């Protein structure tokens, strides 16, 4: 049975899930949710996701939301295909979880705010708070400095293999490099730059980007 993923391809959290599904070769169907028309806040959708957010995954009768819960589920389910994605020992898994928490709390909060301020609010007719954007950018500089140090000792965030912790960054960094015009955060740091080039050239992510660019 094909896994259904509800959400627009342009949104970061569905992209996170799709990257994971592509990594494991899981067949899925993307069912677009039109955020602009508030489809995600309608009663039908709220039945699927009570907070009115994307993505939602339906795997037969089984339904999940929260992208980082979804990727952990599939990485565990298909662990035999690529156990490195979520570690091969409890200790490795703990490090993946640690860096997933870092992505969620230190990295994502900043990126989310920048995207909201620079892209979403103007689209809705509001004004960007440039002071807030600048503060977030400064905090991201510190986060990327830590990543630079970490990646000087390890090829990837959680160790020497690509894991969910790296994967989880893909959508956010893509936003920073493109629409947010903050690519210098990555390009100015040697190891981060190498890491980004590596992870963003993975076949699974390229497939997500093909869909994003309307080619898939």
């Amino acid at each position, binding site marked *: 049975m094909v896994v259904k993923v509800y959400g627009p391809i342009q949104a970061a959290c569905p992209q996170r899930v799709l990257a994971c599904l592509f990594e494991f070769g899981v067949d899925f169907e993307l069912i677009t949710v039109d955020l602009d028309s508030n489809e995600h806040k309608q009663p039908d959708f709220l039945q699927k996701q009570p907070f009115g957010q994307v993505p939602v995954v339906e795997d037969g009768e089984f339904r999940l939301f929260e992208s980082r819960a979804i990727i952990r589920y599939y990485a565990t389910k298909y662990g035999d295909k690529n156990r490195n994605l979520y570690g091969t020992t*409890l200790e490795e898994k703990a490090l993946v979880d640690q860096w997933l928490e870092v992505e*969620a709390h*230190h990295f994502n909060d900043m990126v989310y705010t920048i995207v909201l301020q620079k892209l979403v609010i103007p689209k809705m007719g509001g004004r960007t708070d440039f002071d807030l954007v600048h503060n977030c950018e400064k905090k991201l500089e510190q986060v990327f400095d830590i990543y630079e140090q970490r990646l000087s000792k390890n090829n990837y965030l959680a160790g020497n293999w690509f894991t969910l912790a790296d994967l989880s960054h893909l959508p956010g960094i893509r936003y920073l490099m493109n629409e947010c015009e903050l690519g210098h955060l990555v390009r100015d740091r040697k190891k981060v730059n190498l890491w980004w080039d590596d992870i963003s050239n993975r076949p699974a992510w390229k497939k997500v980007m093909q869909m994003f660019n309307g080619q898939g």
Partner: protein
Amino acid sequence: MSLATHLFLPASSSIPCLVKTRVLFSSAMALKVHGTVGSPATFRALAALHEKDLDFEFIPVNLSAKEHKSPQFLAHKNPFGQVPVFEHGDLKLFESRAITKYVAEAFADKGTSLIHKDPKKSAIQTVWTEVEAQKFDPTVAKLGWEIVLKPKFGMTTDEAVVAEFEKKLEPLLDVYEKRLTESKYLGGDSFTLADLHHLPTLQGIMGTKVKSQFDARPHVSAWASDILSRPAWVKVASMLTK
């Protein structure tokens, strides 16, 4: 400081730590927690360790002396300069929710089971763990900062922010109420990390007027009372009065 005040201390706070006595739970085991009494993230980790009946050494980190920002701490413990930091033999972890998860899995057969083993049940538990981390904690911690901490440090509560975040909390707790009519605990039919992670900020907010939002929802209210009265949590919370 009151219990409520302590429980809103952020992980990287420079607020003076009033507990000067070094608390040593055990010198024998290879489990260590570097943390600060009153830090919600530290208490989150300790709650898990106590639920598992594990002996560990608690090593206080002096936030007021900015120990957590020292080059030594940043280089060898947590580059983000926050507590807690957990050690188990050679493994060193930061991020409280990664620590609790490791403890729950590494010691799965000891003490309270804090995780579901069935993959689908485990996934549902993880969903609600994410809800706590992404939605509950930011909202409630913000309220705690405004209502509890700012006045204590001579700052003025921003009532507009309080109103804004109280308004955000209402629909969140509505979702919790519905969830808890369908499921005894957030993560499923038994107490798990999905519930435990709420404890530090939940305890703190229940000492404020925001408690009325929880009281107004019978299932949320019952759930909150239930988890806050767990012996392991009571043990952690009692560190504030020692």
